[in-house]
């Protein structure tokens, strides 16, 4: 149906509605219903068209880039320079056209934004080839990202913003691959990330349930995860565990707080945060995760490294603040074990650093063992909590995730060769017992609950 709608006719009909109501031909209620019907049909048909138009523009852009990468040697430098600018000039003309004539058409705006992104990349690449300009791929990405971000705002392009977020991740990796790296400073990531945040907020305030807002939030969460990883590496302060615990908890709490849902299901942002918490908890349950340098800082201290160090505290503090607000308001919908993850990790970190520095960095100590034991108990608690909440909400997916977490914990301990057989056995018994109790509870509840 949606495909066969004549949009011009729909526009005409919608224009006629006030007259029809005035003439008494239909009631205003009917008019509102007709309006609502066509509004929903139009957005549905629009979304498919937006994707098609954007993919089309991306292919067109990629095709132009490939043609140009062919590097026509027979053309003079001047000719090649002119050719380099042709796609960009066309793209900018299209942007002007869309802003003046098709400002309300999402497919136009999204497609032209992507085409412009490709045209900028093409122009820079061809000029670099023509004039034998050497430069790292990371520098190229940097310039490209900065030139493209204003178009996201001008054309209100959610796909453009998603491409930008992916570009940020590409930049993080491109920078690491430089043939020699003195200081892989990731600060540009945070600045560039801040540039796209206002756009996300605009979309969020307009319609947080829209698919574009969801897609953009997923892209931003993934970008943040990579950004935090490289920042923790750059900070050289052994605080990565706390930083990641804080990041995922903040994402989880923000997902629940800012994307509330009427049903018991989790929003994708909260879900991603939850998965992050689970995976990080399992990683930290390995004793080797806690072999610390016993130094707050190591390596050369620079101003940027200190900023990276401060950034590591940003998300844990944000997570604690959000949990505290939720607690003070007395209507916390989130899982408490998940919310206290940064605090538990910080305690683990403190415990691991209590002992004296071992003779060799990679040797375990009683303290690293204690920290790992704490994280094992925590992961088990978290798994059981998710399981129980899953059962309560009658959500099979969440109950399964809880079980998966517990199973992952059990399997990790089985393969963790650094623990003695006795400890491994004891751990196994505890995990197995927890698993059984949880199962029994789940089936009791399930059989008692009305189907």
């Amino acid at each position, binding site marked *: 149906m949606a495909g066969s709608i004549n949009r011009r006719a729909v526009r005409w009909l919608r224009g006629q509605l006030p007259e029809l109501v005035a003439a008494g031909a239909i009631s205003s209620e009917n008019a509102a219903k007709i309006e609502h019907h066509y509004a929903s049909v139009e957005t549905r048909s629009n979304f498919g068209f937006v994707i098609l138009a954007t993919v089309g523009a991306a292919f067109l852009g990629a095709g132009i880039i490939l043609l140009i990468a062919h590097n*026509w040697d027979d053309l003079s430098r001047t000719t090649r320079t002119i050719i380099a600018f042709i796609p960009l000039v066309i793209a900018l003309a299209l*942007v002007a056209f869309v802003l003046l004539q098709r400002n309300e058409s999402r497919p136009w705006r999204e497609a032209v934004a992507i085409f412009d992104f490709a045209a900028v990349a093409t122009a820079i690449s061809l*000029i670099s080839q*023509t*004039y*034998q*300009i050497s430069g790292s791929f990371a520098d190229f990405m940097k310039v490209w990202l900065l030139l493209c971000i*204003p178009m996201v705002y001008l054309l209100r392009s959610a796909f453009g913003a998603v491409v930008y977020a992916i570009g940020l991740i590409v930049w993080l990796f491109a920078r690491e691959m430089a043939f*020699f790296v003195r200081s892989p400073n990731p600060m540009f990531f945070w600045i560039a990330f801040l540039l796209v945040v206002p756009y996300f907020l605009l979309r969020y305030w307009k319609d947080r349930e829209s698919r574009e807002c969801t897609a953009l939030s997923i892209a931003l969460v993934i970008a943040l995860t990579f950004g935090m990883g490289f920042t923790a590496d750059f900070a050289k302060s052994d605080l990565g565990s706390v930083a990641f615990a804080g990041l995922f908890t903040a994402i989880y709490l923000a997902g629940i707080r800012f994307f509330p849902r009427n049903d018991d299901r989790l929003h994708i942002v909260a879900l991603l945060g939850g998965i992050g918490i689970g995976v990080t908890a399992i990683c930290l349950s390995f004793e080797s995760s806690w072999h610390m340098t016993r130094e707050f800082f190591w390596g050369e201290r620079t101003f940027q490294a200190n900023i990276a160090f401060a950034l590591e505290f940003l998300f844990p503090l944000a997570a604690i603040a959000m949990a505290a607000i939720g607690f003070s308001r007395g209507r916390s919908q989130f899982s408490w074990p998940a919310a206290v993850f940064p605090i538990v990790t910080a305690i683990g970190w403190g415990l691991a650093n209590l002992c004296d520095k071992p003779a060799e960095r990679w040797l375990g100590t009683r303290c690293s063992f204690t920290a790992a034991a704490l994280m094992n108990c925590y992961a088990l608690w978290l798994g059981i909590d998710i399981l129980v909440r899953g059962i309560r909400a009658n959500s099979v997916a969440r109950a399964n995730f809880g079980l998966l977490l517990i199973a992952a914990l059990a399997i990790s301990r089985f393969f963790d060769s650094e623990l003695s057989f006795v400890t491994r056995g004891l751990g196994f018994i505890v995990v197995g017992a927890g698993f059984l109790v949880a199962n029994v509870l789940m089936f009791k509840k399930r059989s008692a609950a009305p189907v």
Partner: protein
Amino acid sequence: MKKLFILVFVLVALAQLSVPAWMAWARVQTLAHGRVWKFKTAPVDPEDAVRGRYVRLSYDVDRYTANQKFRSGDSVYAVLKENAEGFAEVDRLTTEKGDGDNFVKVEAWWSNDRENIAFPLNQYWVTERDAPAAEKAYVENSRRGQQNAFVTVRVRNGDAALEQLYINNQPLRDYLRAEAQKAQSEKK
């Protein structure tokens, strides 16, 4: 509101156009008015010679090290001098950008108790068609004991523009053409 949008658009359009335009303009200026220096290329690892469609260049001058340590974030320039054979050599390193046509901005990093440098011009773009032959030619002429490759670079006010890659004293394209003709006449 619409006027504001148009104004922002004009600014963004100018920015998007001016970055590639400025990149081209800077090189056009350097190529037109810069002093020509010949840089001997260093032996290469054959695996690493061609990436995609460019020849990966490394230079004899990259082996220069100094015992002065620069702070990270400093712009480091190499001051050039010509040796007896007419090739460029590094005289010294400095952080001061003077004006003239004998210094190039280089990447510098501290390692093994010495300041190491790398010249920024390490990619020579070639056509898709020429890439395999260019790789072969560059590798064969950049072996230890048989270094017949050099590049000409135009230098002006700290900016360096790669002009031409020479193999056996011929520009790369001429060399490749001559080699192809030689191979054809041998077949006959």
